[in-house]
């Protein structure tokens, strides 16, 4: 047979491609569920690392099943909110059926379209996830474009709804040793703990060169040599914080009546202080006695 004729070549390549496509489709179908389980466990690890439930190393050395157990034991509720800040869905937190909002990319697009004032063609409403842990810490995702691919992360927010408890970032293909530091370097993540999100401002957070030098409590220095990744992450943080702003304002208002209790604790503090003072006086007398003896 003439293997160099045009017809043979066309038929041959077509058959090869069809066979390869069929094999890949079959494999992808077969392996799909376990790949999804891995992705889900990975997201849970990152969320719990941000929320400070376990150390990152421990989370990454534990098995998927253990991660699911840990999440089920520590989560108190999970729900989704729209851009208006009103809850519009529940996420299952049952151990056997843990639901997460996947497809942050789609959510990111909805947020951005909304900001630009564009009409949503598909009329999709945003379903931004909020994961509330038993410790009262809320974890929210952020998502944006880095230099080579998407960057995303999970931000844990304290029950006062403005202070950051912890953060975890990840990326698809940032440069190892430069942009990849957002994930690899623990000191970078730790910088976020204790920072405050300035809700209400146009840019609630500032990740930029020398940002810390001005002493603002909503600023973190960008990573040297990773300007584009840092910029992308800064945009991701601000876009998503803005999107969650109305929801957290609402939550903060709901918890306001508890201020009466806060005053009580202040009063208690004064009492303890008084006792402490008394104790010091007593100690001083004892000390005096010893000296006199």
């Amino acid at each position: 047979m003439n293997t160099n004729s045009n017809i043979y070549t066309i038929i041959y390549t077509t058959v090869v491609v069809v066979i390869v496509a069929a094999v890949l489709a079959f494999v992808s179908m077969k392996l799909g569920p376990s790949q999804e389980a891995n992705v889900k466990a990975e997201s849970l690890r990152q969320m719990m690392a941000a929320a400070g439930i376990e150390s990152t190393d421990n989370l990454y050395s534990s098995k998927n099943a253990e991660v699911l157990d840990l999440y089920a034991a520590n989560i108190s509720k999970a729900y989704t909110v729209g851009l208006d800040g009103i809850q519009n869905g529940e996420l299952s937190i049952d151990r056997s059926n843990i639901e997460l909002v996947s497809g942050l990319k789609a959510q990111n697009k909805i947020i951005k379209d909304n900001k630009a004032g564009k009409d949503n063609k598909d009329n999709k409403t945003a379903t931004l996830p909020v994961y509330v842990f038993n410790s009262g810490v809320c974890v929210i995702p952020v998502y944006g474009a880095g230099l080579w691919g998407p960057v995303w992360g999970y931000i844990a927010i304290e029950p006062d709804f403005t202070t950051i408890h912890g953060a975890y970032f990840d990326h698809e293909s940032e440069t190892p040793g430069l942009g990849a530091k957002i994930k690899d370097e623990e000191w970078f993540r730790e910088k976020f703990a204790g920072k405050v999100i300035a809700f209400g401002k146009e840019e609630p957070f500032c990740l930029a060169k020398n940002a810390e030098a001005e002493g603002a409590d909503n600023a973190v220095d960008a990573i040297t040599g990773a300007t584009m990744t840092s910029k992308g992450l800064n945009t991701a943080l601000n876009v998503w914080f803005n999107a969650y702003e109305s929801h957290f304002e609402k939550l903060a208002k709901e918890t306001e009546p508890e201020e009466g209790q806060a005053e009580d604790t202040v009063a208690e503090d004064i009492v303890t202080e008084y006792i402490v003072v008394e104790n010091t006086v007593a100690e001083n007398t004892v000390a005096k006695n010893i000296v006199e003896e």
Partner: protein
Amino acid sequence: MAQNLKDTILNPILKGNPISVLVLGICSSLAVTVQLKGALVMAISVTIVTGLSSLVCSLLRNTIPNRVRIIVQLVIVALMVILVDQILKAGESTYAIDKQLSVYIGLIITNCIVMGRIEAFALGNKPIPSLLDGLANGVGYGLILIIVAFFRELLGSGTLLGFRVLPLSYVPNNLVILPPFALILLGCIIWIHRALDKDLQEK
């Protein structure tokens, strides 16, 4: 014939080592050798890909139209690479390594060793020797990878396969973690290899 087979297997590992003699596949050997575990997975992946692609191409060698043979080979190599990537992603313990190796698994397809062995060997030989040749080239590549990764993880992090080997008082050398040091190590390996094997020395 037995002598031939032995040569097929041993040559790529020693005298014709793809990295230290042919200087192929340098890119990935600089990129994935920071940790021994990653290097091991990469070595195994490349071995499987080169072996299976050579086998399949050798089986098809009489039917592949000569004018489009590179494209057909590429499709076959791509298939193997995607299969390896998908399997790594599905395994619970390999998922983290797959993330760590990130694009380099996908880039096995551009590894000159794979296409080089198919063009040079598999298209002109029977399936079994082709399979062995592919596997042996993967092993030869993996061997260098593992040597480099051994030193880089030991000196760069003080650990081996994640277990602490050097005492905590050892200050990890940051240069070792950066790719240039892998190049220095590779140079040393080539130097030692040539010093030991007189046939490789240029007159």
